[in-house]
């Protein structure tokens, strides 16, 4: 398979810019270190050549930015989407969040993105340089010398259980398209389900108690695109800025997960950005698992315009009391 390099993408972007197909490019901008990449809009070719990056740290799902970026854009915006990003892209289109005509999608293959947290766990503080190799990275550190790490050990949590390498939306593909993958993403949920209620309660009490309500999970989430979130709205009756106690921590996360249930594509951004390392994707995945089990397999974003399970029904749906008792004997 063709290895995607920043040069290929820059060439593609420069070509589309100069032919007037697009007026700007949404991609990733280099940072201070090798790992602090920022999603960014490029309009200038020199800027593109100097600062555009693509590599192991371009995990950010840029689909959501298109809402803002397309608002006042006069020309098309080129966006590079990884397979998982295309699901969010479609889901946003399903919800009429931006005009498809204003976007030119170039699908790019992805072999999984790296998690700098994991690198730091293994290489320690003082990372000076991270260079990608065939099957991993080489890290130069201040205190521990040079360390090489295998890709599978530093993959982002969500990439470890990649659901699909297939692009469900694009105008043009670079490289070959992949397929929907078999994965074990529900194993963690199943493990929790297998615990006793007390264990589950303690698990979540511990996880959620770390929440600082920075709202990063919500703000990064491509399904959370409300004009005004209920938790920010004093009129909603549930507005709440910082959780005062464990109830409010749970309230926020339950309702947020419920609001995106059936719309969440399982992109995993919530867990990736959580500064407190709360495994928030386990809430969303629980809903996905239940939905698949109760109402048939459904992958949000697979198809534009598909009817989300919570705005749909059949006459034979499972009764809630049976749904919660399904594990009991």
């Amino acid at each position: 398979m063709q290895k995607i390099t920043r040069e290929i993408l820059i060439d593609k972007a420069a070509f589309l810019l100069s032919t007037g197909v697009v007026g700007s490019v949404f991609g990733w901008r280099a940072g201070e270190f090798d790992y602090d990449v920022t999603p960014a809009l490029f309009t200038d070719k020199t800027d593109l050549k100097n600062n555009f990056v693509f590599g192991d740290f371009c995990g950010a799902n840029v689909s959501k930015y298109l809402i803002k970026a397309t608002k006042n854009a006069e020309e098309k915006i080129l966006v590079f989407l990884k397979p998982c990003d295309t699901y969010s892209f479609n889901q946003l289109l399903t919800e009429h969040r931006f005009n498809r005509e204003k976007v030119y999608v170039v699908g790019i293959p992805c072999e999984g993105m790296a998690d700098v947290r994991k690198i730091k766990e293994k290489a320690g503080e003082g990372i000076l340089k991270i260079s990608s190799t065939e099957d991993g990275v080489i890290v130069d550190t201040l205190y521990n010398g040079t360390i090489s790490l295998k890709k599978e050990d530093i993959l982002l949590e969500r990439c470890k259980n990649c659901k699909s390498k297939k692009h469900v939306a694009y105008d043009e593909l670079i490289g070959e398209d992949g397929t929907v993958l078999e994965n074990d993403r529900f194993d963690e949920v199943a493990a929790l389900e297998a615990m006793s209620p007390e264990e589950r309660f303690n698990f979540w009490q511990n996880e959620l108690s770390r929440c600082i309500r920075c709202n990063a999970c919500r703000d990064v989430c491509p399904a959370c695109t409300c004009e005004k979130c209920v938790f920010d709205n004093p009129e909603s009756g549930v507005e709440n800025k910082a959780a005062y106690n464990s109830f409010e921590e749970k309230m926020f996360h339950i309702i947020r997960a419920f609001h995106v249930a059936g719309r969440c594509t399982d992109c995993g951004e919530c867990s990736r950005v959580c500064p407190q390392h709360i495994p928030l994707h386990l809430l969303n995945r629980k809903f996905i698992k239940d939905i698949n089990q109760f109402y048939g397999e459904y992958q949000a974003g697979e198809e534009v315009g598909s009817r989300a399970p919570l705005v749909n029904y059949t006459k034979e749906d499972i009764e809630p009391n049976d749904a919660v008792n399904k594990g009991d004997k």
Partner: protein
Amino acid sequence: MRKCKVENIYTLLGEISKNAKLYIPVDQVNGAKFTEYAEGLTLSNALKTERSIKDFFFPQTENLVDFKVSGKIIEIIDNRSEMEDFVIFGARACDVRSMEILDRVFLSEPVDTYYANRRAHGIIISMACNRPAETCFCSTFGIDASKPAGDIVCYKGENEYVFEGVTEKGKNLLEKLNAVTENGGEDTAKIVQTEIKTILDKLPLKDVKADKFGKDKTDKFFNAPEWKTLSEACLGCGTCTFVCPTCQCYDIKDFNTNSGVKRFRCWDSCMYSDFTRMSAGQPRPTQLERFRQRFMHKLVYYPTNNDGIFGCVGCGRCLSRCPISMNIVKVMKKLGEGDNE
């Protein structure tokens, strides 16, 4: 100076915890966290705790006062309980400096009595940074990671911990620890300091300069075109403000319990769309303004109002936490690039 052998440090910590609540950095599932000392706990080797010591003096939420309503009578209940003394062990130079920045806000008139009370009861034992990280840039703001401030400063040498009482509070505490410490340690402190200085010179961000910013630079940067690109990717979450040791904005909320009202305050973030809605009713309209506010406050407004002291301590927490990796270093570099005179 007083010193104690590395292997005796837990005896010393045990001694401190006899008279006051003691918090030490301990490795938790996801990073180091200040944890109340108990026998058996191990000190973390991490450079920084996930959250700064700000939390001890200015917690994320606190109940200020309660109201009880019966008929037409409103009763005000101040439910502050008597504060106990507490000691924080292992605060880094940046975090210690942040207290100075917070003090200037909360201890100037009108004094925030909740904060003042906690300050009065808290003792900070700082610790020189043996292993600064790549994200550290405290030197930008004139902080010396090899010689932090604090009530007591501690240096960790190869074989011994060295303590130096700085403030009255600190010296008193150190005196109480005479049984578990002995005199000396000046040499060790020197060695540690020198080692740290060598490392500081190797840090990738050592050349970040703040000198273009500071007092009365509002006009120079306020309308800079760079804000647009810098703020473009900002999600508007509050991560940077909540992990920041110097962010001190808060909101006050009333919670109706049905049988009364609990008034509490919680951290607020200038990154939020409804920030300042409560006072002027005109919150900053777009993320660009909110983003600009945060950095202008750290780099220009705060120094303007506080004798040129910057509102950032270079701890680097925002560098590693921002979901989209935008941070004050990038802002300073970008704005400082051109000559905006």
